[in-house]
């Protein structure tokens, strides 16, 4: 496949006399820089992002406003934080359909434990962390224990959490949302960490944007430059082969699910401290936005390939579109159509890019 001759002339030369053994195989040319660039998973999404950015710059004057860009970044970050972990999980070969409602579960847990027990808000935050990471660990453990597809297992936890969110909130808080905790001890400091705004050159930017960028940087470093990151590619690319050479498949996959739990916790805390209350029915359907961001960013549905930078670009495309449609004064009814088209186009582009890159 890859060793096929780039030109007919080169192929002809191997047919006659055997080439000298010590020299370079002349059928394999130097890989061109373009091919190296094209073999990056996020290339399709970057091109798409540029196109959409330019489009909205042209059609929506409000979009050029720095404050609008702050809003775009904020929307992107609320999807992007989850897209980082969902992308890592997808590179590791699995899905998590419970990721959307797990965010809500986390916010509800922190709010209700702190309020009902009259604890410092930070204690509730910590309990929510344990619960969120625990949900991830449960997903991962059940997956490895049963060998069922993660689609089925997390679909199960998705419905379980959806029901729990509504049911427990009704029982404990007697309503569809939690009580306001903004006057409780520790609220101010927690809000500063999870939901404050930072002024950059006169533009107010939500702190989640910075956490998101940090998360993308750290996860990229983790994926490309640490041993566990190499294992993520390995278990996603071929779990049997990785097990055979001693990669701890079970630990790696469970760890990835736990990381999804961690980011769900973080976003849940942001929701809680940004709005002071959490609605028990929210988060449903968001899991697909995270998956779309990851796939648009070049993650393969089958695992073993992708990047978190790509997922960040995917989230940015989402942020630009959801706000850009409003700024352009278009009917937002069309938004979901656009999302579906984006997903299909991105998947096709990724497929083509991948086969091209492998051939070079």
């Amino acid at each position, binding site marked *: 496949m890859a060793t096929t001759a780039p030109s007919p002339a080169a192929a002809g030369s191997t047919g006659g006399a055997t080439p000298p053994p010590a020299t370079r195989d002349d059928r394999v040319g130097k890989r061109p820089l373009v091919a190296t660039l094209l073999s990056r998973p996020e290339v399709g999404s970057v091109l798409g992002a540029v196109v959409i950015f330019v489009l909205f710059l042209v059609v929506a004057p409000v979009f050029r406003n720095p404050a609008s860009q702050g809003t775009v970044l904020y929307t992107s970050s609320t999807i992007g934080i989850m897209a980082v972990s969902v992308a890592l999980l997808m590179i590791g070969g699995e899905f998590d359909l419970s990721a959307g409602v797990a965010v809500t579960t986390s916010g509800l847990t922190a709010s209700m434990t702190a309020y009902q027990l009259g604890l410092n808000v930070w204690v509730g935050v910590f309990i929510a962390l344990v619960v969120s990471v625990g949900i991830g660990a449960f997903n991962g453990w059940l997956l490895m224990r049963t060998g069922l597809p993660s689609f089925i297992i997390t679909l199960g936890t998705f419905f379980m959490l959806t029901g729990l969110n509504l049911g427990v909130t009704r029982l404990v808080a007697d309503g569809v949302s939690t009580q306001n905790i903004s006057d409780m001890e520790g609220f101010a400091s927690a809000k500063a960490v999870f939901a404050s705004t930072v002024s950059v050159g006169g533009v107010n930017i939500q702190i989640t944007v910075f956490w998101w960028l940090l998360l993308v940087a750290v996860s990229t470093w983790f994926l490309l430059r640490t*041993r566990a990151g190499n294992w993520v590619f390995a278990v996603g690319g071929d779990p049997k*082969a*990785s097990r055979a050479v001693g990669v701890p498949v079970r630990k790696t996959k469970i760890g990835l699910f736990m990381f999804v739990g961690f980011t769900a916790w973080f976003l849940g805390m942001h929701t809680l401290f940004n709005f002071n209350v959490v609605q028990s029915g929210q988060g449903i359907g968001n899991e697909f936005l995270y998956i779309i961001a990851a796939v648009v960013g070049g993650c393969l549905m089958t695992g073993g390939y992708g990047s978190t930078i790509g997922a960040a670009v995917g989230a940015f495309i989402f942020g630009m579109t959801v706000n850009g449609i409003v700024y352009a004064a278009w009917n937002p009814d069309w938004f979901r159509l656009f999302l579906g088209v984006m997903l299909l186009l991105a998947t096709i582009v990724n497929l083509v890019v991948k086969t091209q890159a492998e051939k070079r």
Partner: protein
Amino acid sequence: MAVSRASTATVVEPTSPVSEIVSLREVGKSYGNVHALRGVSLVVRQGEVTCVLGDNGAGKSTLIKILAGLHAHSEGEVVINGEPVTFSSPREALERGIATVYQDLALVPLMSIWRNFFMGAELRKGPFRMLDVATMKGIVADELLKMGIDVPDLDRPVGGLSGGQRQCIAIARAVYFGAKVLILDEPTAALGVKQSGVVLKYVARARDAGLGVVFITHNPHHAYLVGNHFVILNRGRVSLDGSRAEISLERLTNEMAGGAELEALGHELGASVKQMEEGAQLHAS
């Protein structure tokens, strides 16, 4: 022959000419009520190639899985360096120096060459335990060059390489990571003549370097080119066990093919072959 060469070269070992690294004693394995392997005894010695031959379904794969630590044996004893063991994971087998190169090579197609080479045993450096990419790439380039493979770009995904190149990468990886016993599962099965030659040369090189090699194949010609000892499996049992001195290539081929069965088949097909020959002559004239 290769054995004597290897043993005279190692002066440190005057007592035994070749030492046993792995020996199986009456090993069996059943999956439910299916006996995949029964009463198999086998010895792997340093600097020797032990060939395991057998038709499809003879129990070769089961034997590999036991040696590689993927399945535990259900009867008999697996003795490694004089100590009976039961592996519960491939990692344990690796720690004992038993490396297996599977037919599917245990390479991840989408990952680059150097990532595949060091998969599961990545080199790290610095306070943050970062991957030492430069050193790993250097080692891979050296190891591959030793085998006569020149890949210009180690960042290429393995999926784009030829079968022989992939086979060599997998073997080079096992040898590099200090394997004492190398189990090769049909390494030449999917290869052309030339690439098979390259792989066989490398098998011989591993043997001469003092490794014990278990060479699993259904090609007696390939086996006879490098083997010191031959074991034929048939329906889960050993049907032939002998050293090179005791067995000729002809006998090996015959046994491997099922001896009498093949003869009968020959008579059956003889008629049709004759017909074909006559047809060919007709065409030629």
